[in-house]
């Protein structure tokens, strides 16, 4: 390639997020992941003849609150439409979605990098509410040699919001920041499980390269859509691959074809799925079975007023509490971690120490045991207790790590864990003094060496005391006591 890029990367993301309502979007079936196939179904979500959809108000509230949290305008009048295509996982032959009157429009999201540095603001075009399709399980090793397919409609009718960004992103890295910021905001609202691996959050990326001399509308650029990316990492990888591929095409003087592509996790490559010629005509038209969705100004205001503290505000608070920006950037992603941090910090006093322990040791334990701050076996007050034990000298930092693990695994208090491990650091002067005196009495030669000016000899004496206390004495205290006793022996009190 010649020096410098001759194009600009243009990326827009479409993110589907499953809402964790109690029931599905248009029927009373339970909305839950992991049940045996087709057990969470009824005539409505099976699309049987004669059924009608009834809108779930909880889903509307969740979608509207998501929109408000993302800075969107919530329409007082929106509408549902039918998006039509044939596929076995789509029971009615159409998906009830929102086409030209979406629930939310015109939002924005601020992006921060891993250093906690603000980078840019990405506009959100729209957020609409729609139903999910079911799932096909293909029999056989691969789709190409599948001997049959089984349809599971548990997921059919689960409420989704689709969040469509403007084409404001310029790299895979920015896409990662965007997804992190989006996920954090939605996590604070508690409207979704946000698990990309389980499909409760899914991402499609629209990627095009704009030649620097191209002055037309972005909509006219040939756009490649990479579908069904199942992790933030893969979104980034797919974009990076696709930018390289398209750049290579352009540098060879080849055009970019408008198409839909998939992403292969193993090879890290995208592959063609559907060309423009094969593109669907979805034949959208207004859903006649549902009246227009009308919301009052009061309702929308009430939702706005009840929004929780959101990541941008929390980020400021954490930074103001003296926490390192990189640490802030990790904690801010998880509202449960933030709540935990504030609870422990309030109890203990120093937020930064709490944050450091959370990020280093607690995070490791949570990961290893597949737990989260939501169900952390060590309550914030106990972490505060543990930190106080270190401050008092009862525990060394190294001991505290072991104590924390016991607290976590056995679900016990700091004191109980200390007792179980028998690792309490002996900081009791009355307890240590006789040991110190005994060691001095037993080692007249070493004492004499020290008195003769051999400073290193005191280290040996400390070691002896530690040995007798099975390593639990506070070494600093032992050192101080040794000098005190030796000094008194040299200059006995009258």
């Amino acid at each position, binding site marked *: 390639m010649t020096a410098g890029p001759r194009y600009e990367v243009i990326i827009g993301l479409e993110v589907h997020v499953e809402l964790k309502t109690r029931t599905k979007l248009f029927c009373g079936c339970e909305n839950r992941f992991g049940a045996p196939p087709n057990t969470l179904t009824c005539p409505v979500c099976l*699309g*049987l003849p*004669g059924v009608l959809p*009834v809108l779930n108000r909880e889903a509307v509230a969740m979608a509207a609150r998501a929109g408000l949290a993302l800075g969107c305008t919530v329409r007082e009048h929106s509408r549902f439409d039918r998006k039509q295509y*044939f596929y076995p996982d789509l029971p009615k032959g159409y998906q009830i979605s929102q086409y030209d009157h979406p629930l939310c429009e015109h939002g924005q999201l601020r992006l921060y990098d891993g250093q906690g540095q603000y980078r840019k603001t990405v506009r959100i075009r729209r957020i609409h509410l729609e139903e999910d399709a079911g799932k096909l399980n293909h029999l056989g090793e691969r789709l190409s040699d599948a001997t049959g397919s089984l349809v599971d409609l548990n997921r059919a009718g689960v409420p989704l919001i689709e969040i469509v960004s403007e084409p404001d992103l310029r790299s895979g890295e920015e896409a990662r920041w965007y997804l992190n910021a989006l996920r954090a905001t939605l996590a604070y609202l508690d409207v979704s499980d946000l698990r990309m691996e389980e499909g409760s959050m899914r991402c499609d990326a629209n990627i095009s390269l704009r030649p620097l001399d191209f002055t037309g509308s972005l909509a006219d650029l040939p756009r490649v859509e990479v579908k069904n990316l199942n992790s933030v990492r893969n979104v980034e990888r797919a974009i990076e691959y696709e930018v390289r591929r398209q750049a290579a095409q352009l540098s060879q003087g080849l055009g970019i074809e408008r198409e839909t592509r998939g992403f292969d996790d193993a090879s890290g490559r995208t592959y063609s799925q559907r060309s423009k010629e094969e593109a669907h*005509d979805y*034949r959208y*038209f207004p859903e*006649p079975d549902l009246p227009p969705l009308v919301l009052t100004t009061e309702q929308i205001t009430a939702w706005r007023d009840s929004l929780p503290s959101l990541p941008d505000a929390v980020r400021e608070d954490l930074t103001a509490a003296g926490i390192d920006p990189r640490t802030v950037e990790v904690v801010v992603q998880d509202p449960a971690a933030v709540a935990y941090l504030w609870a422990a910090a309030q109890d203990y006093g120093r937020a930064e120490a709490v944050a450091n322990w959370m990020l280093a040791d607690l995070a490791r334990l949570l990961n290893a045991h597949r737990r989260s701050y939501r169900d952390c076996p060590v309550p914030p007050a106990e972490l505060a207790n543990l930190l106080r034990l270190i401050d008092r000298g009862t525990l060394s930092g190294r001991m505290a790590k072991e104590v924390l693990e016991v607290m976590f695994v056995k679900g016990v208090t700091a004191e109980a864990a200390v007792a179980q491990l028998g690792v309490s650091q002996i900081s009791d002067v009355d307890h240590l003094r006789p040991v110190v005196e005994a060691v001095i009495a037993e080692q007249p030669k070493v004492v004499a060496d020290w008195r003769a000016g051999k400073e290193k000899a005191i280290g040996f004496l400390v070691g002896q005391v530690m040995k007798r206390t099975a390593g639990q004495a506070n070494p600093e205290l032992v050192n101080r006591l040794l000098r005190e006793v030796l000094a008194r022996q040299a200059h006995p009190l009258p």
Partner: protein
Amino acid sequence: MEILDLGARALAEAVQSGALSATAVLEAYWAHIQATEPQVRAFLHLDVERARARALAIDQAPSHLRRTWPLAGVPVAVKDNIVTEGMPTTAGSRILEGWRSPYTATVVARLEAAGAVVLGKTNLDEFAMGSSTEYSAYHPTVNPWDPKRVPGGSSGGSAAAVAAGMAAVALGSDTGGSIRQPAAYCGVVGLKPTYGRVSRYGLIAFASSLDQIGPIARSVEDAALALGVLAGLDPKDATSVPEPVPDYVAAIDELPSAVRIGVPEEYFGEGIDPAVREVVSAALRRMEAQGATLVPIPMPHTAYAIAAYYLIAPAEASSNLARYDGIRFGFRAGAPDLVRLYEETRARGFGVEVKRRILLGTHVLSAGYYDAYYLQAQRVRTLIRGDFERAFQVVDVVATPTTPDLPFPLGSRSEDPLRMYLSDVFTVTANLAGLPAVSVPAGFVDGLPVGLQLIGPAFSEAELLRTARLVERVAPRMRWPWQQGREGAEAR
């Protein structure tokens, strides 16, 4: 008194009081059905055992309960595009042959809760698409007044069953006239309620924004009785309306004294059989003599109604019928891959008229055509609604012939879809505007019934039925087909 000669209200009162048992009523009907059905062929499915069990349950119920059931022991028939648990539901299509719904439509549940005894499922044009019941995938139904002629459609089986005395009341569905046109052809009363008045939950959708379930009965009074049972908000149908349900039977007790009847000349002009026009005009003149005022009103957008209807209805139908794909229920053709499975299932499962409308509707909604067809048709719909709104500022009700013609001979139009479509010309406007409309027998031409249609403002069913009773009052007396040749028997 013959049981068969009693109307639904009289039957219900007899069963409520214990003067008749539901079982006796049912057995009288069953004997008559066995004698009549082989000629008329109104039913796709009859289930006398289920009906007997229901009748017995009614007879064994405590009398204080039975007295509260407005349709106690009344034998009813249900159009076969309304789902019923425990009986097949085919919508008149091969694609649903053998399918049994795991749930029951709200209207059927309401009928049964009111003490009605469901006899079976009636024939219809496939997916309610047609005006003669000849597009049933199973068999045609004949007009009880003349077995060489069609009963109308698509609720032809329901209208024929009522006219032939095989059911006291029947359910129909009306998308562009499918209750009123067969009611007119069969000489019975057929009511299409206001859109949203009756739940559509369990009605196999044809065109969702137009479909409405309503009663077909021998008299206005029986239609009023049935509507009172059917009407009301259903939480399972988001388009049903929480409008209070008046006591329709009480509301029609008195005849209207000075009703203002709008007469749109657009409905009496070109294309109408002069004999039909004369029967309807004569009825209107007699109503005038009873104190009604006839007011000529303009309905300038009537001419566009059929065109708009045949864009909107097929568009919605093409979408509603997408679920018949052979994947989850109903007929499935064997095929080597998914696309062929879809193609073969739908090619063999659907009949010619259904395919015609799916093609039409798919085209109407296609990219590049949507604005010119679908949106334009919706604009016409708004204009037609406006025509009625203006009319109802000066009149209480609009009167028209229900159909431009008399029941036509079987087979005479099935090869000419456009001509078939035109027989809906007077009925589609009420669906497009969402208004209640009723067809009432107004007289006969050569022994063939003629219907007069009344259209009223939204949720004016009580007033509409009251005016319909006036039509009934002034219409010439008639004998039902099963009473022909019997001395002294008279329907009313």
